C-alpha cells in the first residue's frame, strides 16, 4: 500500500515540468517489474488527487520493463523463471540484472 505517496510524487513532478501549459493530457511512466507498483492502484489515486489541477483527466501510460539478466559467460539475455537466476542456456551463475528496477517519469504531454 504505497501507491498514494507515489502518485502524489508523479503529480508534483508533472506539475513542476508543465510550465505555462493549460492542461497536462498524458504522463508517460517507465516502471520496472521489480518496482512493485500496481498501475490500477496508481490510476485510482490519480483520479482523486489530480482533481482540480491542470493534470485532471490526464492519461497515465505505464511502460513496463521486465526484469532481465545478462549472462557474462555466454552473453545470453534472459528473464528469470522465478525459481532460479542462473543462465538457462549455459547454467552459469555469472549473471547481472540489467533491467527491472526502472521507476521514472519519462515525459508529459501538454496543451
Amino acid at each position: 500500500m504505497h501507491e498514494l505517496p507515489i502518485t502524489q510524487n508523479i503529480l508534483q513532478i508533472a506539475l513542476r515540468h508543465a510550465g505555462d501549459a493549460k492542461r497536462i493530457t498524458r504522463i508517460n511512466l517507465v516502471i520496472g517489474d521489480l518496482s512493485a507498483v500496481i498501475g490500477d492502484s496508481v490510476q485510482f489515486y490519480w483520479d482523486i488527487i489530480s482533481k482540480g489541477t491542470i493534470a485532471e483527466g490526464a492519461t497515465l501510460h505505464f511502460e513496463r520493463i521486465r526484469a532481465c539478466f545478462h549472462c557474462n559467460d555466454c552473453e545470453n539475455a534472459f528473464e528469470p523463471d522465478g525459481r532460479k537466476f542462473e543462465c538457462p542456456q549455459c547454467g552459469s551463475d555469472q549473471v547481472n540484472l540489467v533491467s527491472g528496477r526502472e521507476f521514472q517519469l519519462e515525459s508529459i504531454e501538454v496543451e
Partner: protein
Amino acid sequence: MAKKVTVVEEILSENDRAALTNRAQLNDAGLFGLNLMASPGAGKTSVIMATIQALGDKLRIGYIDGDLASSIDVDKVAELGVPAVQINTGGLCHLDAFMMQGALPQLSLSELDLLVVENVGNLVCPSGFRLGIHRNVLIASVPEGDDKPYKYPAMYLGVDVMLLNKMDVIEAFDFDMEYFKRGVEILNPGLAFFPVSCKTGEGLDNWLAWVRSEVAAFKEGIVAVYEPR
C-alpha cells in the same frame, strides 16, 4: 496543439532529496545509522535488543521504530534504557525520508554513536524508499524459506549486510542453504552475511563485531558515501 515535454526524473526524487538531508544531519552529528528491514516476525526487535544488550555499555544507542500502529516495540526497547522514538505510519507499509525528518529531532543526535531504525515489517515496500541512513540491513529468517531472494529480489538487491535469523530451528525446516546463498550472491555479490540465532546467541558475535567496526570506521572519517540511484 499537444506538445511533449521530456522529464526523465526518478519518481521518488523528492524522497531521495529528503534522504540526502537526513544523511547530512547524521553526518554533522557524528552519528552512524542502521536501517533494519525484514518481513514481520523475522526478529528485527530481537536482533536490536540483543545488540543493545551487548553493545549498550560501549556505544550510545538510539532507536526509531516504524510500525503501522502500537508502541509495543518502542516500549520493549525503552526498557533497556535507550532513547526510543515511535513512528506510527497509519497504515503505510514503509518508512520514508520525510517520516525520518519528523523523528530525528526527537533524539539528541550528537549525544549518540549508533542509531538503529526498525522499518515496517515488509519485504517489498521499504526497499524502494531511501531514508538516508548509512547502512541498509536485511534480517532474513529460516522459517520464511530459502526462496525469498527469488521472490523479493528488490529487497536483496538494495542491502549492505544480511543476517539469517532463527538458525536454531533450521533442522525443522527444509531450508536449502546453498540455494538461498546462490540467489543472494547473484543479486548482491559479496554481501556480508551472518547466520544467527537470537534465541541461542549463535553467530551474534560476528554481527556485533561488524556493527562495531562500521561505527569505528565512520568515526574515523570513512563516511559511507550516499549512492544516488
